[in-house]
């Protein structure tokens, strides 16, 4: 049990992982993540990859919505822009995946910049509607710009390769996803504790005071849009390379809502929260799937009634979570940690 923080220099005091105890468990967790693909079945690995893409997109959206306070309902569209950019660059222009991935991010970031421009004038719900428009505009483009996107038929994307080694199985791709997730989360966590991240939060909390202390609102709102869309673009590019096809159906409006739900359930303004949120929102439907399937199977229940029931359960779970902990999973996690900090003593 620790009884207080005693730091001898500022660098130690600013560390993200404050104690040896935390570092030890983090190391153990990382080791587990690395061993995991060798013990898990392909289905579990498929889900893990999906979680990874969701984490990247959700962390990105949290930078925009949770930290900067600009609600976006078009995040799936930015992921789509990234996915299509990667697909087109790889298939048409013979880009290697490794070059196409950052390009996908950059193009998505540019799209985000354009969509972010109204954010200087419109706030809150109004901005929400403006980004909603972006979602539908991009969806329209994906479907109807046939010469580039091949419309609803989509584009087949080859798997990434390192030399002659193809990342064509769930297991192989898992390591790429894991690497990108660590990169994405680490970058975001560092960003929010330095100058730019603080400016984001200042804009969210009090934009007028932020301006008085010298923060250029327009510039930082756009920066936030760009970084956030970059994340989405990278997530989209990874995703389409994983499933090896991109069609407009992969980036529908309800994916945007799902991303937003991840951020809210996880905890607005917490990087760790969006990791939790992404895991929760991806994993729980899969678990409910398995459960409801098993229930129908073993009790010979009508599948017509019980399979859709999982949506109801999922929805209620989210509502219950938000009622009991509006600050999201991150806050629950913080409370659990606080409890064990003193445990087994009451104070």
């Amino acid at each position, binding site marked *: 049990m620790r009884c207080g923080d005693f730091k001898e220099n500022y660098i130690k005091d600013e560390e993200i992982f404050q104690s040896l105890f935390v570092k030890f468990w983090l190391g153990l967790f990382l080791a587990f993540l690395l061993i995991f693909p060798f013990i898990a079945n392909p289905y579990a690995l498929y889900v893990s990859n999906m979680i990874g893409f969701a984490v990247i997109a959700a962390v990105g959206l949290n930078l925009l919505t949770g930290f900067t306070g600009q609600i976006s309902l078009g995040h799936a569209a930015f992921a789509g822009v990234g996915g299509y950019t990667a697909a087109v660059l790889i298939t048409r222009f013979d880009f290697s995946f490794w070059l196409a991935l950052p390009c996908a991010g950059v193009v998505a970031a540019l799209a985000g910049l354009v969509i972010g421009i109204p954010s200087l004038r419109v706030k809150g719900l109004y901005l929400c509607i403006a980004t909603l428009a972006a979602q539908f505009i991009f969806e329209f483009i994906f479907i109807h710009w046939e010469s580039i996107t091949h419309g609803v038929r989509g584009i087949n994307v080859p798997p990434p390769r390192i030399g002659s080694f193809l990342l064509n199985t769930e297991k192989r791709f898992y390591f790429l996803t894991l690497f990108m997730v660590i990169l994405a989360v680490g970058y975001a966590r560092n960003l929010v504790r330095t*100058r*730019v991240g*603080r400016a984001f*939060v*200042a804009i969210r909390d009090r934009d007028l*005071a932020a301006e*008085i202390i*010298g923060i250029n609102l327009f510039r930082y709102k756009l920066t936030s849009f760009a970084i956030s869309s970059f994340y989405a673009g990278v997530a989209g590019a990874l995703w389409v390379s994983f499933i090896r096809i991109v069609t407009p159906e992969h980036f529908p409006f309800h994916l945007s809502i799902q991303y937003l739900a991840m951020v809210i359930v996880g905890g607005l303004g917490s990087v760790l929260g969006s990791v939790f949120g992404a895991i929760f929102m991806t994993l729980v439907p899969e678990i409910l799937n398995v459960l409801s399937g098993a229930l129908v199977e073993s009790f010979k229940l009508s599948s017509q009634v019980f399979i859709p029931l999982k949506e109801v359960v999922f929805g209620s779970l989210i509502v219950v979570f938000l009622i009991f902990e509006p600050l999201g999973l991150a806050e629950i996690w913080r409370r659990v940690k606080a409890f064990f900090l003193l445990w087994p003593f009451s104070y």
Partner: protein
Amino acid sequence: MKDHKEQEAYQLEVRDVHLSFGGLKALNGVSTGVKRGEIFSIIGPNGAGKTCLLNCINRFYRPEKGRIMFEGRDISRLKVHKIAALGVARTFQNVELFGHMTVLDNIRLGGHVHLKSGSIAGGIYFGKARNEEMAFRRHIEERIIDLLEIEQIRKKTVHTLPYGLQKRVELARALAMKPKILLLDEPATGMNLEETEDMARFILDINEEWGVTIVLIEHDMGVVMDISDRVCVLDFGQKIAEGKPREIRHNEQVIKAYLGEEDLAYSRLGA
């Protein structure tokens, strides 16, 4: 073409500033100047236009007429966020802190214009960006937090703090802007006697140790008369007096504005 020498002596000068909201004349041709290194107070009854004047200096409001000069440069057309970079910091009447952040982060935000690292360097947080943050943290800890005696709350979230401390944190944030001139809007409002005295002491310390020019709006006449070098009195958007505290205390127009005619005789007894 007034006295040219005197104009140069002003660090901040307000020339014939007009501001109105609809039919209401909030500022009606106010001209005044603040000299480098002094503590300059603006007083006046409620609604006299004191905060409006600060808001104009900040470029929060754009004056309809008139000019605002800071160190020989007209700042009345600059963007709001540019003003901070020139070295004009301020605190607010109703505390304008970022409630969900820690005290330390709030103060750090004050240094926004003095830090360089962008979104890429910050995200990597290695080498330059990290050194910069650390050097700045040291500056905050050793110069600002130490001066304002808020060591014990540095990691607390701002909205959990009592009002008096929030005022102090806001002052700390303004100091982190490394200001040349500090605009304080009622820093001692809502404080008890002890806190008010602390605040007055901090203002004097900042003025003397850091050499920062102070523009102060305050209703607590004790504080104003004790620490100001010069006082300017506004009433209904117009300047009615300006001078040393002693002169202001006995200025009949000022007493009239504050107390009304019939109380004039009484207040003379009190003063």
